[in-house]
């Protein structure tokens, strides 16, 4: 009896674990075509199936320097007060490839990331937060002195 109960419990726990991991597993394949995209809408379409952005400047904070002396290392922080954020995607509209990275979050991961990115020329950094089928975004204009993407 005891053994059977333990087995059932184990089964329940395992399926619970699988359910929690499912959203992250679904993204496991590296999205090669999205990284090859030149423009922001193309990259978004390939990642999410649509590129309809809803601007939510009040709910998403994107911190980046106004002037980046060195385009090879531009510090970027994104945080948000939105609930149920599944991923945070960073794009730069004038880079040779617009998509920088997508940060997939688990349900217990907070909508916050900090990283360093490369920028080719003065352009907009765009943060896109996926909540269900919605893409919420904010952007920030950054000037660049020295390109970080090639010559």
């Amino acid at each position, binding site marked *: 009896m005891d053994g059977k109960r333990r087995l059932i419990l184990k089964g329940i726990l395992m399926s619970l674990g699988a359910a929690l991991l499912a959203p*992250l597993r679904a993204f496991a394949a590296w999205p090669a075509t999205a*990284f090859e995209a030149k423009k922001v809408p193309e990259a978004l379409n390939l990642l999410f199936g649509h590129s309809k952005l809803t601007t939510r400047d009040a709910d998403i904070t994107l911190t980046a320097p106004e002037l980046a002396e060195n385009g*090879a290392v531009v510090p970027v922080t994104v945080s948000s007060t939105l609930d149920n954020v599944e991923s945070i995607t960073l794009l730069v509209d004038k880079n040779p490839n617009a998509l920088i990275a997508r940060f997939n*979050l688990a349900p217990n991961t907070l909508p916050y990331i900090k990283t360093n990115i490369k920028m080719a020329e003065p352009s907009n950094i765009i943060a896109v937060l996926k909540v269900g089928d919605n893409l919420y975004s904010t952007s920030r204009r950054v000037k660049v002195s020295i390109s970080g993407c*090639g010559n």
Partner: protein
Amino acid sequence: MASQIKIKATLENGVTTVKTLMLHPMDTGLFKKKTGELIPAYFIQEIKCEHNGAMVMLVDSGIGISKNPYLAFSFKGGKAGDTIRVSWIDNKGGTDTAETTISAGNG
């Protein structure tokens, strides 16, 4: 070879903040050598961060992430002493993994 990933995981007010620094050239494939020859793209494609074996952060990254990638993020549910594991894989199949334990902050 010893891992070249640095990780710091600190617990404060129920939130664990993970800061990690990886060693990688992150070559874009757009720069040329002095000889005019292109330096081929060589970059981390995926960064996985796990808390006690459960994924808390999975990054799809490209050439736009800076050399020696830095990443910070936070999650709920961690306890002091829990294991944090960070691993990456690059476009040539190279990989690195490191582990640390969560340390209690001041909170």
